């Protein structure tokens, strides 16, 4: 605590994902995904279940479960190539270079360890803080994420907290080490709407304070609109469209992105008893079909889409899409 902390704005780093592929045994969950997240900005990863967005998050945080392996490509945060690290260097990068914010805070906290201890542990083990110092840092961490009466809460077990409070604790754990990159895996899905809004506001505030770079996984377009600077749309383990958030809502080019947005709009504007618009069919489970992964469900697919894989193409400033029929669609 003697050295002055570095200026907050320099904390975030540019994140580069380069042709990343991840395999679960024989099954390829993520194929050749490349994207860049500018320092201090938020990129939302969007897609249905099974699109590979959580796999990308776990791979970028280097916390893939046993059985899953990065089979190609790299993830670089600032100067650190995360995917090249092993052993002790990898452990040290976790929580520091890249921190992971889990989806379900009720399950992500250890039920038999007091909340304060779960945060203090990071300081104790990673920075050699004494028990008292670590407890004070944990208390501070709880206060930073807007928990009232942090002294009392620190002594509670997770079971005694509400869902929103647990999510705040998870955020405090993820940010305990002032990471450069925060990977948030649908952290608000399990919360009700008002609590979700609080959490989104909290993350935005912390991001501005620390200049965090954020990768936010979600399937909720309203969260995208609220939080993201850029959006990457994944389907069947591939990146199908990548653009800034305004272009996404006004000029999405990939048929899948357009379909997602139509569903979202219909959900917002549909009157009573009016059916929601859905995308017919379901996302690939056992592995995407040959050609474009979306072609079985795509209203515009032709013969070529079933055989030949479209590569991501530049369709505008900061805007790529992977579709054979970009010229024909508006």
């Amino acid at each position, binding site marked *: 605590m003697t050295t002055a902390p570095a200026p907050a704005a320099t904390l975030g780093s540019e994140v580069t994902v380069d042709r990343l592929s991840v395999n679960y045994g024989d099954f390829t969950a993520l194929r050749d995904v490349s994207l860049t997240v500018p320092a201090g900005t938020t990129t939302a990863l969007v897609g249905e279940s099974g699109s590979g967005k959580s796999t990308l998050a776990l791979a970028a*945080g280097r*916390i893939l*479960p*046993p059985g899953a392996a990065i089979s190609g490509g790299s993830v670089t945060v600032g100067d650190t190539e995360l995917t090249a690290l092993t052993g002790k260097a990898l*452990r*040290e*990068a*976790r*929580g*520091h270079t890249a*921190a*992971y914010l*889990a*989806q*379900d805070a009720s*399950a*992500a*906290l*250890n*039920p*038999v*360890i007091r909340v304060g201890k779960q945060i203090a*542990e*990071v300081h104790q*083990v*990673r920075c050699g803080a004494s028990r008292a110092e670590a407890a004070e840092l944990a208390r501070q961490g709880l206060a930073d994420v807007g928990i009232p009466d942090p002294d009392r809460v620190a002594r509670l*077990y997770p*079971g*005694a907290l509400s869902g929103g409070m647990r999510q705040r604790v*998870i955020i405090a*754990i*993820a940010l*305990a*080490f002032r990471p450069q990159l925060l990977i948030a895996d649908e952290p608000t899905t399990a919360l009700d709407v008002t609590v979700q809004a609080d959490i989104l506001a909290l993350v935005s505030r912390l991001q501005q304070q620390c200049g965090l770079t954020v990768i936010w996984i979600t399937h909720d377009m309203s969260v995208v609109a609220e939080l993201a600077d850029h959006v990457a749309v994944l389907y069947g383990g591939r990146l199908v469209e990548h653009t800034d958030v305004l272009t996404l809502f006004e000029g999405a080019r990939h048929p899948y992105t357009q379909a997602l947005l139509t569903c979202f709009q219909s959900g917002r504007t549909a009157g009573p008893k009016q059916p929601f618009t859905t995308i017919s069919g379901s996302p690939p489970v056992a592995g995407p079909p040959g050609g474009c992964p979306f072609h079985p469900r795509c209203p515009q697919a032709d013969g070529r889409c079933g055989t030949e894989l479209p590569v991501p193409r530049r369709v505008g400033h900061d805007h790529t899409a992977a579709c054979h029929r970009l010229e024909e669609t508006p």
Partner: protein
Amino acid sequence: MARRIAVRILLGAFTVLAVVLLTFVLQYVVPGDPARSIAGPKATPEVLKEIRGQLRLDDPWWSQLGHYLSSVLQGDLGTSYSNDRPVLSLILERLPATAALAAAALVVELVLGGLWGMWEALRPKRSWLLATVNVGLLSMPVFSLGFLLLLLFGYQLPVFPIDGGSGPARLVLPAVTLGLMGSPYYANVVRDSMREALSSSYVRTAVSKGLSRRRIVSRHVLRNIASPVTTLIGMDVAVFLSGVVFVEKIFAWPGIGQMQTDAFTDLDRPLLTGTVIVAAALVVTANLLVDLLRSAIDPRAASEAP
């Protein structure tokens, strides 16, 4: 918490009372004449009548029940037919030997099963050898294993005495027998709850904090398996303390179990029912202690209904 403990104690007392009533009913309905088994086949009708009078066997059932309940409540479990001594003092005499065996067996199965389960949980591949040993031990009758060990380590390789009695050297084989029989249960519970913990979301959080695997296992995983293991220990303590009949008989270990078998062959009803009542009290107490211990270990258990 105090309320919860009080409720548990009350429920336990009711359970023991129910067992006492049950033993009375069994004594009442089981055929055979206790007076005859005390006095022997050559006893005269006068002697039989006198004994029946002493035991109040000719009283109406409600009078017998009242007398039985009031003496049990006063700690009088009756007098043994076969050696004419108070049942309670006979049981208390045997309890230290049984408790020593129970403690030793518990240590064996906990250490063996715990290490075994942890090893299996931390290994990615399943070991066929261990799986076979596991099923083998689970399906082997306890007397087969007991005699096998006795044959191997008492007779073929005379490492341990086979003449029966108590003492540390004589404790080894019965404790190992019980421990080996119990270890697969511990191994399975430890392995399964550890695997569940290792694949849990909170372990992923621990990994993302940058903790070492050793610390994750010792601080985050083991604490979560303490609760199911405690439950298992509680069950075993109760079973072992109430007398392990076969093992004590095989190794001539002078504990409650051996006394039970003897009481059974002698048709010594007060002694048999006495051991059953003491066993019930021990099981209830062990359950209560486990419950309290689990509440101390696991905050989730503390909020369960009594």
